C-alpha cells in the first residue's frame, strides 16, 4: 500500500466509508460501502495451504483411479501402472494433508462419529473412506503383478484376484471424491467460494482430469498414452471454459481471482494449462514434449487450486465482498426471505 493509498484508506475509515482494497487489474468500479472501520465481517477459514494441496492431490487420486481402471481394462499396462501409483500416492498424501491441517490431528477419528449430509467435510471423509480401500487394493494389485509367480498365492493371490474388481469400484467412486471438494469450499460464508458454487465442481473435475491425465503423459509410454492425453486435454478445456463462466456468474467476488496472490496463481494456472494442453496435442509423437506438457498440466491444476483457495481467503478479509453484494440485493428489492 502506498502512502497515498494509506492516507485515503484512513480518511475513509474516519468517515466510516470505504472504497475497499485497491483492485489494480479490475475493470469493476470501486464499490462504496460502509463497515466497522474496514474490518472483516466473515472470518477467513483458518486453513493453511494444506487444504489447497489436499484439493490437488485428491483430484490427482480420483482422476488416476479412473484412468488406471480404463487402462487395465483396455490392456495398457504402462498407463495402468503410473495411474495406479498416482491414485495411491495422491490418496495417501491427501489424507496426510487433511489430517495435518486439523488443529488437532490426534482427533481425526472424531470425524467418524457421525454421518452428516449437511456437512460436506463429513460426506467427503466418508467418500474417501469408501473409495480409499478399493483404490488401495487396486494399486497393491499392480505391485503384486510384477512379483514372482510363486509369491502370488494365498492371501496375496486373493488380493491380486480382487484387485481388478476393486479397481472398477475405485473408478466408480472416484468422481465424487474429485467433485465434493468444490462443495466443501462453497458451503461456507466465504464470498468467493460460495459465489462460485454453480461452476466450481466442473472446474475442479476438469482440473482433476487435466492433472491425472498429465501424470499419465509423464509416466506412460507414448503408444499407451492416448487416453491420458484425451482425458487431460478435455479436462483442461473444461477447466478453462468453465472457469471463465464462473467468473461471470460470481459477481463482485470474482475480483479476488485477479488480484493479489490469488491473481498470480490464477494467471499461472491459465498459462500452464493452455501451454500443457497445446503441448499435449502437438507433442503426440514426442515423448519429451509429452512429459513436459504433462508436468505443465499438473502444475496448472495445482495453481488453480491455490488460486481459488487464496481468492476465498482474500474475499473473507475484505468486508466489501460481504457487504456490497448483500446491500445491492436488498436495494434491488430482493432480500432473502422464506416464502412458504
Amino acid at each position, binding site marked *: 500500500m502506498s502512502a497515498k493509498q494509506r492516507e485515503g484508506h484512513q480518511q475513509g*475509515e474516519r*468517515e*466510516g466509508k470505504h472504497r475497499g482494497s485497491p483492485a489494480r487489474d479490475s475493470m469493476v468500479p470501486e464499490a462504496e460501502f*460502509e*463497515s*466497522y*472501520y*474496514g*474490518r472483516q*465481517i*466473515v*472470518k*477467513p477459514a*483458518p486453513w493453511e495451504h494444506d487444504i489447497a494441496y489436499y484439493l490437488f492431490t485428491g483430484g490427482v487420486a480420483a482422476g488416476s483411479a*479412473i484412468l488406471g481402471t*480404463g487402462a487395465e*481394462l*483396455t490392456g495398457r499396462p504402462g498407463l495402468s501402472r503410473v495411474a495406479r501409483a498416482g491414485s495411491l500416492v495422491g490418496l495417501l498424501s491427501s489424507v496426510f494433508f487433511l489430517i495435518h491441517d*486439523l*488443529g*488437532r490431528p490426534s*482427533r481425526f477419528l*472424531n*470425524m467418524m*462419529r*457421525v*454421518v452428516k449430509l*449437511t*456437512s460436506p*467435510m463429513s460426506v467427503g471423509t466418508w467418500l474417501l473412506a469408501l473409495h480409499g480401500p478399493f483404490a488401495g487394493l487396486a494399486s497393491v494389485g499392480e505391485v503384486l503383478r510384477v512379483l514372482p509367480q510363486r509369491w502370488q498365492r494365498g492371501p496375496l493371490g486373493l488380493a491380486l484376484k480382487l484387485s481388478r474388481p476393486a479397481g472398477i469400484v475405485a473408478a466408480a467412486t*472416484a*468422481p465424487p471424491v*474429485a467433485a465434493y471438494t*468444490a462443495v466443501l469450499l*462453497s*458451503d*461456507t*460464508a466465504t464470498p468467493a*467460494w*460460495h459465489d462460485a*458454487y*454453480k*461452476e466450481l*465442481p*466442473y472446474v475442479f*473435475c476438469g482440473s*482433476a*482430469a487435466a492433472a491425472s491425465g498429465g501424470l499419465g503423459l509423464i509416466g506412460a509410454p507414448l503408444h499407451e498414452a492416448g*487416453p*491420458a492425453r*484425451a*482425458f487431460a486435454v*478435455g479436462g483442461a478445456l473444461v477447466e478453462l471454459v468453465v472457469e471463465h463462466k464462473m467468473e461471470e456468474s460470481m459477481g463482485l467476488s470474482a475480483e479476488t481471482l485477479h488480484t493479489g496472490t490469488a491473481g498470480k496463481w490464477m494467471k499461472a494456472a491459465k498459462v500452464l494449462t493452455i501451454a500443457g494442453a497445446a503441448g499435449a496435442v502437438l507433442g503426440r509423437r514426442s515423448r519429451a514434449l509429452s512429459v513436459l506438457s504433462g508436468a505443465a498440466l499438473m502444475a496448472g491444476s495445482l495453481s488453480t487450486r491455490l488460486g481459488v483457495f487464496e481468492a476465498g481467503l482474500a474475499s473473507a478479509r475484505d468486508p466489501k465482498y460481504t*457487504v456490497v453484494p*448483500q446491500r445491492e440485493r*436488498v436495494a434491488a428489492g430482493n*432480500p*432473502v*426471505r*422464506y416464502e412458504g
Partner: protein
Amino acid sequence: MIGRNSLFGPVDPAADAGYDDHPKRKGFFTDTSVCIGCKACEVACKEWNDVPENLFEMLGTSYDNSHSLNANQWRHVAFVERPAKPPVDLGMPSMGPGGVAVDAVTQQTEVAGSAEDMDFRWLMSSDVCKHCTHAACLDVCPTGSLFRSEFGTVVVQDEICNGCGYCVAACPYGVIDRRKGPDGADNIGIAQKCTLCYDRLTEDQVPACAKACPTESILFGDVEELRQTANDRVARLHEQGVMDARLYGNDPEDGVGGTGAFFLLLDEPEVYGLPPDPVVTTKDLPAMFNRAGMAALALLAGGVVSFLGRKR
C-alpha cells in the same frame, strides 16, 4: 437426513433438532440504544466462562480494545464513531438545561452535550453469537461437536471438536473461531464461542452478560417474548423521533430463519460490523450437491470417452 432437518425457513430449532419435550427457546435481545459501552458483559462473560485474555490493544481507529468476536471474546462491545445527525425536529418544546427528564436514547444519540459542539455521535453495541435458527456452523461440523441445545441455542463440545475450522468459514457473522492462544489456556486449537451460558441455563440462571449489564441493554428470556419487547421498543423510539432505530435478526423469515440473539440498532448493520442480509450457506446445499453430482458424472463420462474408439 436432509429431509428430516429443514435447511431454511422458520422452525423451532430445538424441535427441529429432535427434542420432543423442551423448554421455550431462549435468547438475547440486545438494545444498543441503551448500551453505554461499559464492557461489564465482556468481563462477566470472561469471568464466568473462564475465557482467556484476548489481545488488549487499542485499534488505532477507535476506542474498541477487544477487536472482534473470536475464540477468546464471546461478547464484544463495538464502539462506532459516526458523524452527527441533525436532531429531528418534532415540533415539541425544546429541552434546555434543567428541563424535564429525557429518554436515555434521545439524550445519548442526539443531545448529549449541546448539538453545536458535537460533530459526531457514539454508537455502542454489545455483539454476541447469534444462535441462528439455521446455524451454518452447526450444519457443517463434521464431528457433531456443535449441537443444538434443548433451549434452541448452539453449543460446542470441547472434548469432541477436532479443530477442523469448517465452522469458522461457514458462519455468516464471523462469530466462531479456533482458539490460538494464549499459551497454557484450555482448548487451544478448537472452536470456541458463546454458549449462551448453557451451564447457567440448565440451573435456571440468567447468562452472565445479561446479569451484569447495568442498563438492561442485554435482555435475556424467551425469544418469543423478547421479539414482542423489541417491537414495542422500536415503536416507542420511532414515536420519539429516533427513526434510525431498527431491529436486526428478529425476523424468522430472513436468510438464517431469524436469530436467537437479535439487536436493536441505530444505524445500518454494516456500520456495527454486521452483514446487512446474511444467508445460511446450507440454504444452497442441495443445489451444490446437485451441481457436484453432475460434474462427477461428467468426469466419469470423460474418462470413458477417453478410452473409446482408440486402438492400441
